[in-house]
């Protein structure tokens, strides 16, 4: 009798299909970003892929943890270290992969593993993710424009970016909590 009750409990605890998809995206998207980095650089660094894969797997198990920051940091450091072409279009693909990773990680914290997502939720998250990818593409266009002109020594890009970052950080720190929430 105990075994059958355990089996019933296991059936109840089966993750929803949406959860499986999200976990798969959490693992696969950083690896895709690493792959894109290799394509942009023309060479591969296998230990980084292993590290990113391990960290991504940890993120899939514990989406509420801070392993996601390490994954993004690892991908960024690899990009910084091996990609020499600063206006490469591969950066859009890498940004898209990181967008998927970020969205999947955030989405995985929304609901219990066994809760199925509604169609409207899936559509909204997909729409918003696509919007961020479009924003990345727009950013790439700005980067290309500012770095391919002779007058560009980076000042036109980095000075406003620095100001925007400082203002954004100050503004965001004032809006860090939900009243009555976390």
């Amino acid at each position: 009798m105990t075994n059958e009750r355990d089996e019933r409990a296991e059936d109840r605890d089966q993750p929803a299909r949406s959860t499986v998809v999200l976990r798969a995206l959490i693992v696969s998207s950083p690896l895709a970003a690493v792959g894109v980095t290799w394509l942009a650089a023309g060479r591969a660094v296998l230990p980084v892929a292993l590290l990113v894969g391990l960290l991504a797997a940890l993120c899939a198990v514990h989406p509420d943890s801070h392993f996601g920051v390490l994954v993004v940091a690892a991908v960024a450091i690899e990009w910084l270290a091996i990609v020499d072409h600063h206006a490469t279009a591969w950066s859009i693909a890498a940004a898209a992969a990181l967008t998927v990773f970020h969205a999947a990680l955030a989405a995985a914290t929304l609901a219990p593993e066994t809760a199925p997502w509604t169609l409207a939720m899936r559509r909204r998250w997909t729409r918003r993710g696509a919007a961020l990818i479009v924003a990345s593409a727009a950013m790439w266009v700005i980067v290309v424009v500012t770095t391919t002109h002779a007058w560009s020594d980076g000042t036109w890009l980095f000075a406003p970016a620095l100001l925007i970052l400082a203002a954004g950080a100050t503004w965001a720190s004032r809006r860090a909590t939900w009243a009555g929430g976390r």
Partner: protein
Amino acid sequence: MLAGAAVLGHRPDLLVLAAPFVGAAVWAALLRPTTPLTVHQSMGHPTLSEGDATTWRFSVDDPGCHADDIAVRLRVPEWIVAQPADGAAAAGLRDDGDRVLDIGVRATRWGRHRVGPARVVASSAWAGFQWVSESGLDARSLLTLPRTTHFDATAGSVHRPGLIGVNRSPRQSAGTEFASIRPFQPGDRLRRIHWSRSLRTGTLHVTSTWADHDRHVVLLVEGFDDIGRSEGIDGSTSSLDLTLRAAGSIAEHFLEVGDRVALVVLDNRGIHRLPAAGGSRHLRRLLETLSTTDPTGRLNDTGRVPRGLHPGALVVMLSPLASPTALERAVTMAAHGRSVVVVDCLPRDITQQFPGDPLAGVAWRIRSLERALEIERAGESGVAVVQWRGPGSLDQVLRNMRSNATERSQRPT
């Protein structure tokens, strides 16, 4: 972090990688919720029958309209099946309709189940901010009544005194149903005289009627043991499942035909009584009492006959007859002049319910042989034992008891 590295390291390509994170952060901060949410929960029906389902509804009041998604996790105990599975559900607050989240709750076995508490989490855009319900979403009690099957006993009633019910007594007495026209006897009422027959024959004749009969049934339920494997309403049944469902079905039948039914439940916590009464409300009370039967107490069956049983009642005793004590109790009641029917509620496949334990199967086969002997001896003492096989199980026994009672009533004294 990425944007900072891009700026400080003069790497514009990192700004492209940073763009989605900055965008999501700004998006989340712009849509930051400023007012707490209010969550209401309600349960469709606090009382169900086995196999029935109700809806647990959560509604969210979001005055700021900044919460995007809501997720609920309802704690469900054993014998409760939630839909979606595990009592977990998620929905978009605005794009999924009316800010209501429903979780189906289906009870698969009788008893009082505590469902909940629930935890509700609301998230804003990009899950940037989350609101978790802290209190106010308490657990609720869900009473599940045993499932009754329509019991189709067609046998007539056993002779019992009383003049209220709708059953025709085997005796002729004051009543409403015509029986015969017979010669006048001292004591007959004058209004019963059949004048046309009397004038034609020259002697007084009266119309006789069958007495209306009130049946008083006592259901004596033994809940000391729960033998066998229970899988709820959808699977195999344990002895207590059979006992309670049979008791509910028998009670429903007798109450439907206008009889009065009393209930005495013996379990390891003591004796629980429900006085005799009739009607659908009484059936509800009776099922509620049955559903609180608890075999996990510390008292043991002493074999004593519970006091206060109506002397003229038909006692229907429901028991798995796991120990000889149960039949001894029935024999004692029969020896005191009560009409006793024992309904055997041991699952018929009890010897096959322990596939991993061959000794248990052998033990139950030996016990079954002993039970057969005990049942035979009880029959010799005037106690009818019938195995519960669903509707109609008691028909043959009631017919036999009725014919015996008729013979006794017609025997010259």
